[in-house]
C-alpha cells in the first residue's frame, strides 16, 4: 500500500489540539432557577478555577481521535496496485455468436465486460465491438461508464456465427497513434479455423462453460412427395448422456406432427419428415420441453419457397441415382426440345462448357484442368464450413472408391478435400458456374446417404441461379433485403415481437442476429399496408456444438501488458469506516442511556 498524498498525514497532528480541548474545562451550561439561595452550599463542590483538568480518556475522545486519524489517512489517498487488463484505450470485442448462448457464456462475458468498464478510470477510454456475424462498433472512445455499460447491456447473443477476424479488424481500426490500444476478445474462441492464429495485439478472455445440449443442426427441404413437402431434419446431441427428445413440427404456427428421437451421447440423427405444407408457408421444428445448455438451437424454421422450372439434361454415362434425383426435385424437368438451363456431365466429356454444369468425374475435364492420375479410397479431411451448397450436408464420412488427381489452375474453390486432393470444387468455366465432383458418384456411398437429395437440390439451386433456394431463409445475421414502395416505408417485426420502422430509402435490415421468423410489412405513403413477406433466420449449425478453445495471442507477451496495473484507492473503505466511527460516536453521545444525560423537562436552558 502506498500514499498518493503523504503530506496529508500531517493533519494527524490535529490530535494534539483535540486532546488539549479535552483537557480544558468545558463551559458550563447555564440554567435559570427561581433562586440560587438553596444551591449556595453546593458551590464547594465546584473544582478549582484552573482552566485545566486531568485528561479523562472517554469513548468519545477515542472515537474522535480515530475519526481524525482516519480523515488524515483518507486525505493521504492510500492505494494499492491491482493487475488490470485495461489499457489507456481498451477495445472490448464481445462475441455474440450462437455458441455464446451455451451455458451462460454470454452473460458471463457481459458481466466480465461490465466489471472491466467499472474498473476503468477517468483517463481510460473504452470501445465496444459486437463480434457477431456482422461485426460492428457499438461505442468508441468513451470515458463515460454509463455509456459503456449501456453499450454492453445492449448486446444480445444471436443465432449466427461469429466473424472474429472482422471484429478484430474493426478493433484494430479503432487504434490511434497517440494512445496505446489494447484489444480484449471476450469469446469462447469460435469455430476452429475461423481465425488466423496467433492473434497479435489482443488478449483472449475465454468463456468455456459447458452443458448438455441437443440441437437441430440441419433443417431444410428434402425431396417433395405427393402433395407434401419432405423436410430434412438433423438433430445432434452434444450431451454426455442419452437423450430422448420429441421434435414438434409446425406449419404457420400450427402443430402438424412430431418426431420422437432417442440420441446417444454425441450422436446425431437425420430424418426426412413429410409435412403437409405448401409454397410460402413457414415450417418449424421445435425440440419440445428442451432443458439444455443452449435454448437458441432448439428451434429451426424454413419458408417453403417457390421454384421456377429448371430444364436439366444429363450427358455421359448417367446413373439411375441421378435420374431419380432429377425426377424427384420440384421444378426440375428434363430438357426436351428446349435448351437446358443446367447440364449434368456424368463421366462424359466436359471439354466444352457453354452453360452451368455439374461435372462428375469427366473425361476429358474442362479446359485448364489436367487429370494427372487417380487415387483409391481417399479419406475426407476437410469440408469447408459455411458453404451454402453444403448446408445441412456432411460429407466428412463419405466413402469413395476412386478420385481424379488434377492439375488445377487458379480460381477453383475447394469445398471438400482429402488432404491436398480436391473432392468437390466450385469454379467458373467460360463464364459459367461449375460444380466439379472428382469422383464417380456410383462408386461412392453418396447416393444412399440421406443428404444426397439435399446436396443435389443445393447444387442445382446454385447452378440455376438460386432459383430453387429460398433467399428468405438464411443463417442468423444475414441481412434482409428490403424493397419498399416509392415514398413508402417498411416495418420489420422481429422474432421477439418488437417492431422497427424504417424509412423508405432503407433497403437492408441487418439486425437479424436473433434466429426466428421476421415479418416485413411494406407501407405506402399513407401508411396503408401494400405488401408483406416473411423471412427466416436460422441458428448457425456450426455454433451448436458449443465448443470452446483458447485463442493463441501474442498480446500477453508485451511489456505493456505485464506492467498494466490499476491504482485502486482505499477511499470507499475508509469513508465507510469513518461513517461507522461517527455513528458510534453519535450513539455514545446521544443514543446511549447515561446518568449525565439531561432529562427532558428540566429548567429552562439559557
Amino acid at each position, binding site marked *: 500500500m502506498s500514499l498518493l498524498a503523504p503530506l496529508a498525514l500531517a493533519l494527524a497532528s490535529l490530535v494534539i489540539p483535540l486532546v488539549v480541548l479535552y483537557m480544558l474545562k*468545558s463551559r*458550563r*451550561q*447555564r*440554567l*435559570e*432557577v*427561581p*433562586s*440560587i*439561595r*438553596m*444551591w*449556595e*452550599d*453546593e*458551590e464547594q*463542590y*465546584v*473544582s478549582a478555577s484552573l482552566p485545566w483538568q486531568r485528561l479523562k480518556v472517554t469513548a468519545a475522545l477515542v472515537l474522535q481521535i480515530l475519526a481524525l486519524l482516519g480523515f488524515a489517512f483518507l486525505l493521504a489517498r492510500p492505494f494499492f496496485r491491482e493487475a488490470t487488463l485495461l489499457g489507456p484505450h481498451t477495445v472490448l470485442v464481445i462475441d455474440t455468436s450462437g455458441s455464446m448462448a451455451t451455458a451462460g457464456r454470454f452473460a458471463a462475458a457481459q458481466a466480465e465486460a461490465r466489471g472491466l468498464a467499472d474498473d476503468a478510470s477517468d483517463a481510460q477510454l473504452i470501445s465496444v465491438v459486437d463480434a457477431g456475424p456482422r461485426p460492428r462498433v457499438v461505442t468508441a472512445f468513451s470515458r463515460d461508464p454509463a455509456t459503456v455499460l449501456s453499450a454492453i447491456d445492449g448486446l444480445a447473443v444471436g443465432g449466427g456465427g461469429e466473424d472474429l477476424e472482422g471484429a478484430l479488424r474493426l478493433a484494430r481500426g479503432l487504434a490511434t497513434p497517440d494512445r496505446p490500444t489494447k484489444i480484449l476478445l471476450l469469446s469462447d474462441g469460435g469455430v476452429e479455423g475461423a481465425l488466423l492464429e496467433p492473434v497479435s495485439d489482443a488478449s483472449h478472455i475465454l468463456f468455456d462453460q459447458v452443458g448438455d445440449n441437443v440441437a437441430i443442426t440441419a433443417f431444410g427441404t428434402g425431396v417433395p412427395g405427393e402433395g407434401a413437402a419432405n423436410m430434412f431434419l438433423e438433430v445432434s446431441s452434444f450431451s454426455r448422456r442419452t437423450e430422448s427428445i420429441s421434435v414438434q413440427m409446425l406449419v404457420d404456427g400450427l402443430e402438424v406432427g412430431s418426431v420422437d428421437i432417442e440420441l446417444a451421447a454425441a450422436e446425431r440423427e437425420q430424418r426426412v419428415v413429410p409435412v403437409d405444407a405448401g409454397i410460402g408457408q413457414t415450417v418449424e421444428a421445435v425440440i419440445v420441453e428442451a432443458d439444455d445448455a443452449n435454448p437458441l438451437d432448439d428451434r429451426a424454421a424454413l419458408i417453403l419457397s417457390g421454384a421456377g422450372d429448371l430444364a436439366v439434361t444429363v450427358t455421359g454415362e448417367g446413373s439411375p441415382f441421378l435420374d431419380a434425383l432429377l425426377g424427384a426435385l420440384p421444378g426440375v424437368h428434363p430438357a426436351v426440345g428446349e435448351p437446358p438451363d443446367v447440364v449434368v456431365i456424368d463421366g462424359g466429356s466436359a471439354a466444352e462448357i457453354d452453360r452451368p454444369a455439374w461435372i462428375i468425374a469427366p473425361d476429358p475435364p474442362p479446359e485448364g484442368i489436367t487429370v494427372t492420375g487417380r487415387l483409391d479410397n481417399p479419406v475426407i479431411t476437410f469440408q469447408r464450413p459455411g458453404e451454402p451448397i453444403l448446408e445441412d450436408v456432411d460429407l466428412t464420412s463419405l466413402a469413395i472408391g476412386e478420385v481424379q488427381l488434377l492439375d488445377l489452375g487458379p480460381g477453383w474453390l475447394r469445398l471438400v478435400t482429402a488432404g491436398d486432393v480436391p473432392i468437390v470444387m466450385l469454379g467458373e468455366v467460360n463464364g459459367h458456374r461449375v460444380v466439379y465432383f472428382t469422383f464417380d458418384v456410383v462408386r461412392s456411398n453418396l447416393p444412399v446417404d440421406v443428404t444426397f437429395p439435399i446436396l443435389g437440390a443445393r447444387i442445382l439451386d446454385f447452378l440455376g441461379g438460386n432459383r430453387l433456394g429460398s433467399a428468405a431463409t438464411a443463417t442468423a445475421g444475414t441481412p434482409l433485403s428490403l424493397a419498399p414502395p416509392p415514398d413508402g416505408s417498411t416495418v420489420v417485426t422481429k422474432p421477439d415481437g418488437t417492431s422497427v420502422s424504417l424509412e423508405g430509402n432503407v433497403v437492408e435490415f441487418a439486425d437479424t442476429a436473433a434466429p426466428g421468423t421476421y415479418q416485413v410489412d411494406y407501407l405506402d405513403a399513407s401508411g396503408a399496408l401494400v405488401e408483406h413477406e416473411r423471412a427466416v433466420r436460422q441458428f448457425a449449425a456450426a455454433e451448436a456444438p458449443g465448443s470452446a478453445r483458447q485463442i493463441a495471442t501474442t498480446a500477453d507477451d508485451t511489456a505493456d501488458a505485464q506492467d498494466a496495473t490499476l491504482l485502486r484507492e482505499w477511499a470507499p473503505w475508509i469513508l465507510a469506516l469513518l461513517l461507522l466511527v461517527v455513528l458510534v460516536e453519535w450513539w455514545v453521545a446521544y443514543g446511549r442511556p447515561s*446518568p*449525565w444525560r*439531561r*432529562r427532558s*423537562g*428540566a*429548567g429552562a436552558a*439559557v
Partner: protein
Amino acid sequence: MLLEPELRARLERLSLTNRRRLRGMWSGRHRSKQLGESLDFADYREYNPGDDFRRIDYNLWARLGVVLVRLFEAEDEMPLQIVVDTSSSMEFGEKFATAQRLAAAITFLGLAAGERVRLVTVPASDRPSLRGPWARHVSSWPQMEGFLESLSPEGGTDLPGAAHLMAAAGAHRGPVVLVSDLLAPGWEAAVDLLGSLGGGVVLHVLSPSELDPDFSGDLTLRDIETKAELPVSISEAAVSRYRERMQSFVAEASARARRSGMDYVTVLAGPEALTAALRELVAAGRLT
C-alpha cells in the same frame, strides 16, 4: 379570564371566616372588638349621662336599685387584603399563573361575601409603595380581574417594606392573604407583620421542579430575579441535600406563619393548584 363562570358559581357557595375580632371602619358581618348595635348581648355598665335611655335595664334598676345600661356586640366589616408577589422568581414554571388564579379566587370570595377587598402588589423600587384597588361588591369583579390580568412578574419585591406600610395603615387592619414563593429577602419579618394585622393565610406557591430538581451535572445556575450566577456541580447527593434544604425552608415558612397567626398552605403550581389550595383552606376552617 382567570376564573371560569362555573368556578365562580361554586365559589359563591363558600364564605371566608375569621378567627379574630375585627376593628373595622364600617359595620359588617364580622364580630368587632368594639361594642355596637347588634342583637347579641355583651355586658352591663353604669348609666352615664348621655346614654340612650332605651338601653337602661329597668328590671335590674328595680331589683338592685342601680341604673345599668345594656351593652351589645358590634359587627364590623372584614377588610381583606391580598398581597400578590410579582417578583421575577414567580416567573419560573407556572408559579405566577397559579398565583393569579389563587388571588382571583380569594378576591371573588371576598367580593361575593360583601367584604372590602384590596389587591396589593409591591413594585420593586427604592421606596416601598403599595399598589392596588379596593372593592366591596361583586360588581367590581371585572375591574379586579382586569387588574390581576395586567400583572406580570418582573424585577424584585420588597415584602417587608410592604408589610410595614400595610401595618401603618391601621384603619384597614384585617386578614391578609399573602400569595408568594417567599424567595424574597426578609420574608420572615413580612409574615410576622402581616400576621399581626389580623391573621390570614400564607399561600406558598412553589414549582414542582423547585422541590424536586431534574437536572444534574456541571452547571452555572442563574438567579432569575437577581441575575446572580452560581457555578455548581450537581450530583445525586447534591440534589438530595437541596431537597432537604427545601423541606426545611417549607417547614420554617409554615412554622413562622403559624406563629404569626396565619394559616399556611403549600401550593404546587399547576392546573390543579387552585382546587388543592381551596381544599386545604376548607380543611383549615378558613372557608366554610
